[in-house]
């Protein structure tokens, strides 16, 4: 029993509910309150790591909390093993950086924004920590609805359209997920993940297949893998930059976590293998990655382009995890971490660079690099990391992913990794060259620019915004040199993914 992991969810939830009341007192106080909330969250994470440092090193780290004191098979319990700890740490770090960025970036309707933002924080922490199927569904729905509202945050026509599309897809996925949870409950009579995992094999194979298919469809929709990738670029494009950073940096990674949790811990990889679905999924994910990179080539919009490249990378991560080898998980989780920082950093930088342009289109990217030289240099460094150049983190993760594919003799996967970074060179270089092009403004351009610029979007705390961009670049460079820092956490999380029996024993017997 460790109440700290409950507070990991409660702190952001409480912050979200208190913000409207703080607004009543003083609107300026809100920013400090927001900072206080996220600092408290970071303090909790850090104290968990420090208090359990010995058990982390010896490899038997496990924390649990029973809600209301009910024991696992009956009540809801929160569990934190090494995998969830790694995800919780990186999610909290990302959320921390993006909150500071938002303080500089969001200039209007701040109150609503922070409420939604902290609900996302609470839901993602909850989805990572919970050990209960129905609870995970609740948090997923919470994520969907809050992020849907944030995507439509600009209230333009495009933004609303994207938000509706996003909501249709994700609510459908949520419904499917709910159906899966119901099926499990009616067949096994339990909702605890460890308990389900123990008894799942005893089900009939037809029902096993049905449940697996439903969960698979739901989670693939959420992640944006091939047949369901349509909602992703549109919503990435129209959302404000910090929201996009959250969507691609946090949400997609949380869904990847849920994917790993459900298909390794709950349903079990053996079931997938018995149903021959692992081969289908591997190739589907690789094909999705291929399509993502190809679509990025034709994109005339930098934020959509980054969205397509996200599809490419998420497909690659899914594929390398589907190999179900230690090397695969090592590369996959390292790439999750590096992609989280790189993509969030890129969107953050985009938010700064695109502040004075008319639109996100390629032709308006002209001269961006000349106006904001130092941020553009950071942007280029992040792009170089995306294509995998040392000494940046992208190189290390690409290395391990490629090695995992080659060790498993999956040459299609290896080809996709190389193909991805080669096409990335083509589509990124185009934008870099455009950014350094001289601008020759005509009178009409000037007029259009002046009249079309929404005045609200002008940043009023520019220093904070550029500082966060540099912070992301520094993280990428620092961990690129010291990527071995992740060695221990990665090995711990692989251990906890692979060793399902231990998880069951700890949840049920502890």
């Amino acid at each position: 029993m460790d109440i700290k992991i409950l507070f990991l969810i409660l702190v952001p939830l409480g912050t979200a509910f208190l913000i409207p009341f703080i607004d009543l007192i003083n609107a300026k106080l809100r920013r400090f309150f927001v900072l206080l909330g996220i600092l408290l969250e970071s303090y909790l994470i850090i104290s968990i790591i420090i208090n359990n440092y010995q058990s982390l090193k010896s490899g038997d780290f496990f924390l649990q909390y029973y809600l209301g004191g009910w024991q696992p098979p009956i009540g809801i319990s929160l569990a934190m093993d090494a995998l969830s700890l790694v995800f919780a740490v990186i999610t909290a770090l990302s959320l921390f950086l993006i909150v500071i960025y938002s303080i500089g970036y969001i200039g209007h309707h701040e109150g609503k924004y922070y409420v939604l933002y902290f609900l996302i924080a609470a839901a993602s922490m909850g989805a990572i920590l919970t050990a209960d199927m129905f609870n995970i569904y609740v948090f997923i729905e919470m994520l969907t609805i809050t992020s849907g509202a944030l995507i439509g945050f600009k209230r333009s026509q495009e933004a609303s359209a994207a938000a509706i599309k996003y909501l249709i897809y994700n609510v459908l996925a949520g419904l499917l997920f709910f159906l899966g949870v119901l099926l499990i409950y009616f067949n096994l009579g339990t909702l605890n993940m460890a308990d389900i995992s123990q008894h799942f094999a005893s089900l009939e194979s037809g029902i096993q297949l049905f449940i697996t298919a439903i969960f698979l469809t739901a989670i693939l929709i959420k992640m944006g893998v091939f047949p369901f990738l349509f909602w992703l670029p549109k919503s990435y494009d129209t959302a404000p930059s910090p929201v996009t950073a959250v969507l691609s940096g946090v949400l997609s990674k949380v869904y990847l976590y849920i994917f790993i949790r459900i298909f390794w811990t709950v349903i079990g990889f053996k079931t997938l293998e018995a149903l021959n679905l692992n081969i289908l999924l591997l190739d589907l994910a690789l094909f999705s990655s291929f399509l993502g990179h190809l679509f990025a080539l034709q994109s005339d919009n930098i934020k959509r382009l980054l969205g397509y490249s996200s599809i490419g990378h998420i497909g690659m991560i899914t594929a390398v995890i589907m190999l179900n080898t230690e090397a695969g998980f090592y590369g996959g989780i390292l790439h999750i971490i590096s992609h989280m920082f790189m993509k969030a950093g890129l969107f953050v930088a985009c938010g700064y660079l695109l502040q004075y342009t008319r639109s996100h289109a390629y032709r308006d990217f002209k001269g961006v690099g000349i106006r904001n030289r130092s941020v553009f240099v950071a942007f280029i460094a992040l792009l170089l990391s995306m294509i995998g150049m040392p000494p940046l983190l992208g190189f290390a993760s690409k290395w391990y992913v490629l090695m995992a594919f080659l060790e498993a003799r999956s040459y299609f996967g290896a080809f996709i990794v190389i193909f991805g970074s080669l096409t990335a060179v083509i589509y990124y270089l185009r934008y870099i060259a455009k950014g350094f092009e001289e601008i020759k403004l005509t009178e009409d351009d000037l007029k259009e620019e002046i009249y079309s610029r929404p005045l609200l979007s002008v940043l009023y705390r520019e220093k904070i915004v550029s500082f966060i961009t540099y912070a992301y670049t520094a993280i990428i460079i620092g961990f690129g040199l010291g990527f071995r820092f992740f060695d221990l956490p990665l090995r711990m999380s692989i251990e906890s993914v692979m060793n399902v029996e231990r998880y069951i024993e700890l949840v049920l017997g502890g």
Partner: protein
Amino acid sequence: MAVIWQQFLSSFQFDSYFPLLAEVGVILTLMTALAAWNYIKENKFWYYILTFVYLLSSLVVILTNDWFFFLFGWEMVTLATTFMLAWSDWKLVRQYFVIQFSGSSILLFGALAANAFGYAKIGAINSIPLQFLLIMGIGMKSGLFLFHFWLPPIHSEAPAPVSAILSGWVVKLGYIFLLKIIPLEKGNTFLFLLGLAMVIYAGWQALRSADLKIMLAYSTVSQLGFIALAIGTGGKYAFYGAVLHIIAHGFAKTTLFISSGIWQKEYGSRIIYDFKDAISRRPVTSAAAIMSLASLGAVVFTAGYKSKYLIKSAQTPGILVTTVFFLLGFLSFLYAARVIYWIFIKDQDYSNFLSDLKHGFNHYQIYTADVLALITGTLGIIVVSFWPEMPAGVLASLADKDFHLISGLRDSLIYLALAAYLFVNNNGFKIKVRDNLSLENYLQAFLNFVYGLSRKSVKFDTEKIFEAFFYNAIFNASKKLYNLVYQDFTIQLLWIPIFMTVLLLWQQIYAYF
């Protein structure tokens, strides 16, 4: 962190000839740094930072035996040298980066494949397909035959010190890597043939070019051919010859590119025929250049002669080998001697006082740093030519090797006589100056060829072609695919039931296959 540092340090291997090569690399980089002191005017600080990064990472590439650090170092070399090109033109940066990155992607694939097949450390690789894969990866970066197309345009357009770095040492890193992975006993026939093709083709192109830097770039490809040929041959003396040639050519080419920079500033031109009377106007530069050109042309008593003799002696002896190597040597000698022929000529009219006075003043005030760089290069060539066993004694057995200097002298004299005859009768091979080489011009030539099949030649705007044709072809193709996949929203949603049906029926579908 501590672990990776230990691993990094323990991955260095200080045996065989690699420490020697690393030392030579350091000396060459210092030479270019000296030459750049007055050549690079803007952002000097960043230039030297990049040089420093390049120096450290090239040392890692040469000395490490761990695949990860090797590729890490190599990518750092790529990155540093790429940004050095920015002192000339950003277009070059883009082109060079794309080419180098695609090369290193193949190399990364090859390296990890080797790793997956059980070669945990960099060492001799016996599997022929893996060797082939790695040679392909090297090929793009180090300009093997057919992949060398980028080398002359980029090496000739770069600023002189950067050309010296690129041509003198960066391209050699690939061959140093090949020295590690090709087994000493067997060699590799494919590499041998590639090398032979490079020597002949690039030698011919060097003879055909009137621009000094383009000629030097082609001669780089040609001399790299000798190295590839030597490594492909296999055997102790062939490898020694390759090592010696890497060192000798490194010194010679670095010196030559530095002196080409000085001549360029003096005459305001890069055409060989303009360097008239260079011997009296720029005596130190010309002396160093003559020394290096003699080494390129394998004149007896120079470094180039020793290395080429070693390579020749490693082949199966016979009349064919002797003839072929005689002709190959003659080709190198011709293009080297042509430059010397033109710098001795003094046919300008200095009869009136003003032009005489003008002639008296040099346009470029040579600096101490330049002279130091040139002297270092010349000293390097002299050391290699008279003590091929080298100070460190790694090539100790070369001290007793008989280099057949008498026959070398005979060959050199024959070369000299033939060359003198050809030059005097053909006006020093004075040919029309070609347009500047650039990758866009290559593209244009290719497109002209394709269009010319159907109609008469069309004049293209290459800038636009590169943007409009190359990019648009890619974009339109992917746009088509995009439109195919991105249908109406209802059809997008239809994927959900389709996908679920496929999942549910997957057992049957799988059984069907």
